[in-house]
C-alpha cells in the first residue's frame, strides 16, 4: 500500500512537472513533440478523475490528430461545401459560436440550440445539451446530417474525400497502409482531434498547482468561496461540471419548447433538465445557456440571484435564494474569469494548418 501510494505521488509529481515544463517552454506541445506513429497519451492533470473515453481502441497519434484537424476545418463536409465544424466551433472563443444565441448553419439556417464548446471531451460521458449522444466518435453525425447545420451525410462526404489524393495519403498515414477512407476512420480521426482539445492551464489551474508568482486577487478569492458554496454542487471542480442533468430555473421558452433531457429519456422527471455545462473559458463562450438567452455573465448572475423560475423539476439546490450583493456578483464573475486559459485558446497546434 505504502509503495503504491508513493508511486502514485511520484507519478503525479512527474505528470505535473512535465506539464509545467511543456507549458513553460511553450513552443512545442506534448502532442506534437512525439515522433510519428508514436501513441500520444492524453494528459490527466493531477487531481482529475479518469477519462471516460476508451483510448485503447482509438489511441491519439500525431497523424490521426492532424487528419482530424484537417477534417474539422474542411467545409467539404457540408452539402454545399460552405460550412465546416469550425464555422460553429471557433478556437478563440472556446470552440463555440460566439455572439450567436442559436447556431447558424448551411444557407444561414438557424438551429434550435446554442453551440456547446468542445473542451476536455475525454471526460464527457454523454454529449449535447440533452446528453443524447453516447460517444464522441458518433457525435459528428449529428451536425453532418442536420438539415440546418451541414445537411450532408457520410454517403456524400466519403466519396468526396476519396477523390482527393491528399486524404488518401493522410488516412493511410493515420490508420495504416491498408486503411480506407471509411466511416470508422473518418469518425475516429475527428474524435482524436476533439479529444486532444484539453484546457487545464488557466489562472485557476496555476493557483491550484501553487505555481510561483501566480495568486488570486482579493475579489477572485471571495468569488471562489461564493462559487464553492453556491455553484460548485453542479459546476464541480476540476471540470466545472458534474456531467449531470439539472433544471437551473430558466423560464420556459414557449417558442422553442425544448424539453431537454426528457427528449431522450421520455421521463417526466427529466423534463426541462439540461446537461450542466463546463465553465472553463466561460468568459469567452457567450451567449449563455442552451438557447443562448443571456448575453453576458452579469445577466447569468442576475438570473441565479433574482430570476429563478420554479418550473417542474427545478433543482432543490436552487430553491433557496442566493442573496448575492452587487459585490458578491462581481466577485463570482471575477473568479469565473480566472477559468480563461489563454494558452489553450491560442495554441497553434489546434489551428487550421495549410499543407
Amino acid at each position, binding site marked *: 500500500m505504502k509503495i503504491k501510494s508513493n508511486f502514485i505521488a511520484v507519478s503525479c509529481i512527474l505528470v505535473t512537472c512535465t506539464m509545467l515544463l511543456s507549458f513553460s517552454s511553450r513552443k512545442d506541445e506534448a502532442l506534437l513533440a512525439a515522433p510519428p506513429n508514436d501513441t500520444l497519451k492524453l494528459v490527466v492533470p493531477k487531481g482529475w478523475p479518469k477519462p471516460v473515453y476508451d483510448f485503447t*481502441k*482509438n489511441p491519439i497519434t500525431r497523424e490521426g490528430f492532424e487528419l482530424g484537424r484537417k477534417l474539422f476545418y474542411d467545409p467539404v463536409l457540408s452539402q454545399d461545401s460552405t460550412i465546416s465544424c469550425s464555422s460553429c466551433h471557433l478556437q478563440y472563443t472556446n470552440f463555440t459560436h460566439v455572439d450567436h444565441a442559436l447556431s447558424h448553419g448551411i444557407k444561414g439556417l438557424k438551429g434550435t440550440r446554442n453551440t456547446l464548446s468542445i473542451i476536455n471531451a475525454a471526460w464527457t460521458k454523454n454529449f*449535447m445539451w440533452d446528453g*443524447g*449522444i*453516447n*460517444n*464522441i*466518435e*458518433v457525435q459528428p*453525425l*449529428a451536425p*453532418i*446530417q*442536420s438539415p440546418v447545420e451541414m445537411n450532408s*451525410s*457520410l*454517403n456524400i462526404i*466519403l466519396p468526396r474525400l476519396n477523390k482527393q489524393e491528399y486524404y488518401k495519403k493522410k488516412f493511410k498515414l493515420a490508420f495504416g497502409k491498408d486503411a480506407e477512407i*471509411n*466511416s*470508422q476512420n*473518418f*469518425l*475516429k480521426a475527428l*474524435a482524436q482531434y476533439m479529444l486532444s482539445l484539453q484546457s487545464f492551464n488557466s489562472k485557476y489551474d496555476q493557483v491550484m498547482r501553487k505555481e510561483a508568482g501566480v495568486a488570486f486577487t482579493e475579489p477572485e478569492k471571495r468569488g471562489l468561496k461564493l462559487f464553492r458554496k453556491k455553484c460548485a454542487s453542479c459546476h464541480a471542480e476540476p471540470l466545472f461540471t458534474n456531467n449531470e442533468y439539472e433544471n437551473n430555473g430558466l423560464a420556459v421558452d414557449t417558442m422553442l419548447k425544448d424539453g431537454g433531457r426528457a*427528449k*431522450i429519456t*421520455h421521463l417526466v422527471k427529466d423534463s426541462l433538465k439540461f446537461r450542466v455545462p463546463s465553465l472553463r473559458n466561460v468568459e469567452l463562450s457567450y451567449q449563455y445557456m442552451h438557447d443562448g438567452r443571456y448575453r453576458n455573465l452579469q445577466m447569468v448572475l442576475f438570473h441565479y440571484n433574482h430570476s429563478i423560475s420554479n418550473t417542474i423539476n427545478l433543482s432543490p439546490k436552487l430553491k433557496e435564494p442566493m442573496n448575492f450583493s452587487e459585490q458578491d456578483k462581481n466577485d463570482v464573475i471575477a473568479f469565473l474569469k480566472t477559468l480563461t486559459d489563454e494558452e489553450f485558446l491560442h495554441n497553434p497546434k489546434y489551428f487550421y494548418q495549410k499543407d
Partner: protein
Amino acid sequence: MKTPKKILTGLVVLFASLGFAQSKRDIAIHVNPVFNGEKLVLETKKYVSPANDTMQFERLRFYLSSFELVFNDGTIYKEKNSYHLIDAEEINTLKINLKDVPTGKIASVKFNIGVDSIKSVSGALDGDLDPRYGMYWAWNSGYINAKLEGRSKSCKAHQNRFEFHIGGYSFPENSLRKVEIDLSKNKTGFFEGNQLSLSADIQTWFNGIALSNVTGVMIPGKQAMTVADNYSNMFKASFQ
C-alpha cells in the same frame, strides 16, 4: 531456430484441418421477406393490412444479430461478430453464411432482431454496423433496429407516407427482440442440412396498427416497443 517453428505450425494446421475438416460445414440462412405468405414486392405491389389499409412498401431493412444454433445434445454454436443488415433492396444481404458449424442435429436457431446495447454505445463501428446505411440515429445515438417505409391512402401524413423506424437500446425502451425458432417440428425431428430458409412476414408488423391513427414511429418508446413485439413473430423456418 526459424525452421522448426514453421514445421511445427505447419503440422498443427495440418492436424487441425484433418481433425475437423469433415466435421465442419457452412450453413446458409436465406431471409425471404413476404406479406401474408406471399413474396414481398417493393414499390409496385399493393397489400392489405389486418386493419384494411391498402399499402405499398418502399423500404425494408432490419438487423439480425447474435446467431446461435442449438444442437440436440445441448451444445451451442455461436456465430462470431454476428451482425447482419438485411435490406430487401439488396439481394446479397438476404443470405447469411454461418461458417464452420459442427455437423450434428440442430434443434433450434436463435438470434436477435436489432443491435445490442453494447454495440449501441461503442462509437464508430464498421461492417454492417457502419453508420452510413441509414440505420443510425444521429441526434439520439443508437441503431434503428428495423425500418419499414411505404405509402397508403389511409395515411394522413405528407404524400401518404408511413415510416416505421424502430429503435431504442436502453431500459425500458429496449426494442431488441430475441427470437428462437424451433427446427424440431418436422418428420425428422431436427435440422441437419446446410440451407435454412427464414420467411419474414411483414404483415405481423401491423397487428393492432391502423395507418389512419399511426403514420409512423421515429423515436424509441411505447409505440416502438409494440411494433417490435409484433415483428418478433415474423419469422418462420423451412428447409428440405
